[in-house]
């Protein structure tokens, strides 16, 4: 995927929009790794991420003519990806008993700065990624949308189907869940004082 600030391949996109299969193939190769990584972070299994990646690009191919070239293609693609992944996750959530959304009813306490600092310093990227697996679906999705694809609060609200004012709450709760998952037995997520 084009890194932040990198110029988007506008010509390639334009050609792909006209039905140029070569251009479409190049566009896929350009963006597929990043979208797969996005899905990998958002979806519970590798197989789900692979399926989601293919389905997102199938959807993209259908919707490509609707793309407004005056807007960021990357942001638009991430929006499609986020909507698709969240749709899949919601269906899974409806089917499985594993649902952690009831954590919303639990009040959050401010973390102890020293413990939070220790946690941030000691944890590796791999540990964070593993901890993501233990999060609730919405929490995980919110974190991925915000910190992987840099989506705005409005976009996150739109994708998750919540009011914009709740996005901060969702993210904060997601961080608490993540800290708890990372800290395991430590009292970081709940043991702080104000």
């Amino acid at each position, binding site marked *: 995927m084009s890194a932040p600030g990198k110029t988007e391949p506008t010509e390639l996109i334009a050609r792909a929009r006209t039905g140029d299969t070569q251009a479409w193939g190049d566009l896929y190769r350009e963006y*597929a790794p990043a979208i797969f990584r996005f899905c990998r972070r958002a979806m519970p*299994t*590798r197989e789900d991420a692979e399926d989601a990646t293919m389905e997102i690009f199938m959807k993209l191919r259908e919707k490509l003519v609707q793309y407004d070239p005056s807007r960021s293609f990357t942001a638009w693609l991430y929006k499609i990806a986020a909507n698709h992944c969240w749709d899949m996750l919601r269906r899974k959530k409806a089917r499985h008993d594993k649902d952690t959304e*009831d954590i919303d009813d639990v009040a959050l306490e401010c973390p102890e700065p020293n413990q*939070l600092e220790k946690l941030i310093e000691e944890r590796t990227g*791999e540990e964070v*990624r593993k901890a993501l697996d233990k999060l609730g679906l919405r929490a995980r999705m919110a974190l991925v949308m915000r910190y992987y694809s840099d989506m705005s609060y409005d976009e996150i609200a739109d994708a998750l189907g919540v009011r914009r004012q709740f996005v*901060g709450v*969702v993210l904060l709760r997601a961080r608490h869940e993540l800290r708890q998952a990372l800290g395991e037995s430590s009292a970081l997520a709940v043991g702080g004082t104000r």
Partner: protein
Amino acid sequence: MSEPERNKEKRLDEKCMDEMTLLLYVERQLDRETAQGVSLHTQTCTRCLNLLRLLDRESRLLTRSMLEEDEALPARIAEFHERVKRNMQWIWGVVFGLAVLGVYALYTTYIEPWQNQLQQAGFGGSNLLSLVVFQGAFWKGWQSMITLFEALAVMIMAGFGIFAFRRYLRRGSAMAVLFASLGALLMVTTPAASATEFRKGDSITIPKGQVIKGDIFITGEHVRIEGEIDGDAYVFAQQLDMSGHISGDLIGFVQSERVSGTIDGNIRTASNNLTITGSVERNVLAWNQTFELDSSGKIGRSLTAGGQTLTVDGKVGRDFLAFSETTTISGLIGGSFKGHGKSLSIASGAQIDGKTEFEGQQVPEVSSEAKLASAPAFTKTERHAETRGSGYYVWRVIWTGAFLLFGLVLAGLMPKFAMETVESAGNLGASFGLGVLVFFGVLIGSIIACITVVGMLVGLSSVMLWLVMLFAAEVVVGGIVGQWIMGHASEFWPFFLRVVVGVVAVRIVTTIPFIGFWAGLAVAVWGMGAISLALYRRLQPTMAPNIPSVPMSPMNSPLPPQTTVGGI
């Protein structure tokens, strides 16, 4: 810490910002005024400043962790290709060929022998399907029973079908199936017939002298028909006494049924006991525990009866086809007799003008005074002794292929649902529990729906759905057994390979004598439960986002770029 220091810290704590506000500040989501307040506060509050920095570092840790390229793009998605569409194209030819084979197997194994027997029993050269469905009384009944409620039921079912398959509507095959189903439903739901009367009550009597013009539906505990019905009569009752005249057919679902009057058409009935002392001009098709054609009773054409005890003292104009434990004939059979059961007794007063064939456990007792056109042909059936020639195993293989074909079509149309269903089968307790409920409950419910006038179409549709589930059950159980043998797979073709292995294993087990039947029953219950469980899970409503309990700060506009962040 001294008391003044503690008081100072306490005062500072009281003014501290909550984590939510600090996070929104870091994320630049606060309005200018609130952001300035935070900025000023963090210039004097070390604790909040630290927390602010930590939240920012945490954000960076999250971004860094997520952006790290820890996995290469999997080979199977390295190039874009429309997998399902392309891979499935060639399979339709195979599917069609196997489907034809499956239909042929079904026809030659089950339908054709029955058709032949029914034809021999006096149903003439009529096609079985058209006889039973399109020309028979049931079809007329359906026509009469189409009401607004049934039309609504069809619309609801169509809506449900579209909703359930909306994800697959882009696929041509799903569209074809959907439209074919709707077409079939439209064929059934032809315009309603008029002049139909409905009567309901504990005790219903059509008195002598009363004439009902047109068809009549009667539901009641005790039903007496002494008058005349110029049409068909549909009776759902505990007890029926028909001593009047029906110019059409009598269709009955009755516990105890006695016909002493005259019926110009047919009797088609399922009841506990049926006694005919009157006259039926055409055919009788009866499934009863006890059936008796009294010496004064007369059937103009054929008699087809199934049950525990059949007694024919009266006169049957044409053939008699019997499926009964005990059959006794002492009357006149104008055509041939063909019976299946335990025993047959042909008494002295009996006369059979056609061939007499009996397949059973005991040699038929034939009185020397009975008048038979030919000597009875007897075929002994050995109980529990199944003769399994090579043909049996050939058909088992063909049926296994048909099951696999069925599984392939289902999995091709609904790959995700197929995998979910197999996954549900892994939950043994829930699958079996739900399976028992569905296996018996849906069937009983469908029958109840059928015998209540409004629910006939819904009931028949439920039976169809039940049958589809019954056939799919073996494929589902095959899927989970295959996964137990070969391990889990989430891609289509590896998944289907496991289904193949599993179905073959299940078919082998269900082929074993004696055990096979019970294994088959267990598989049916288990598989139906798994399908129901998967459907149940899929239809669960999605939870709505909850109202947060954390106090919120207003977030009208993002923090302007020139806003200073205290200490950062």
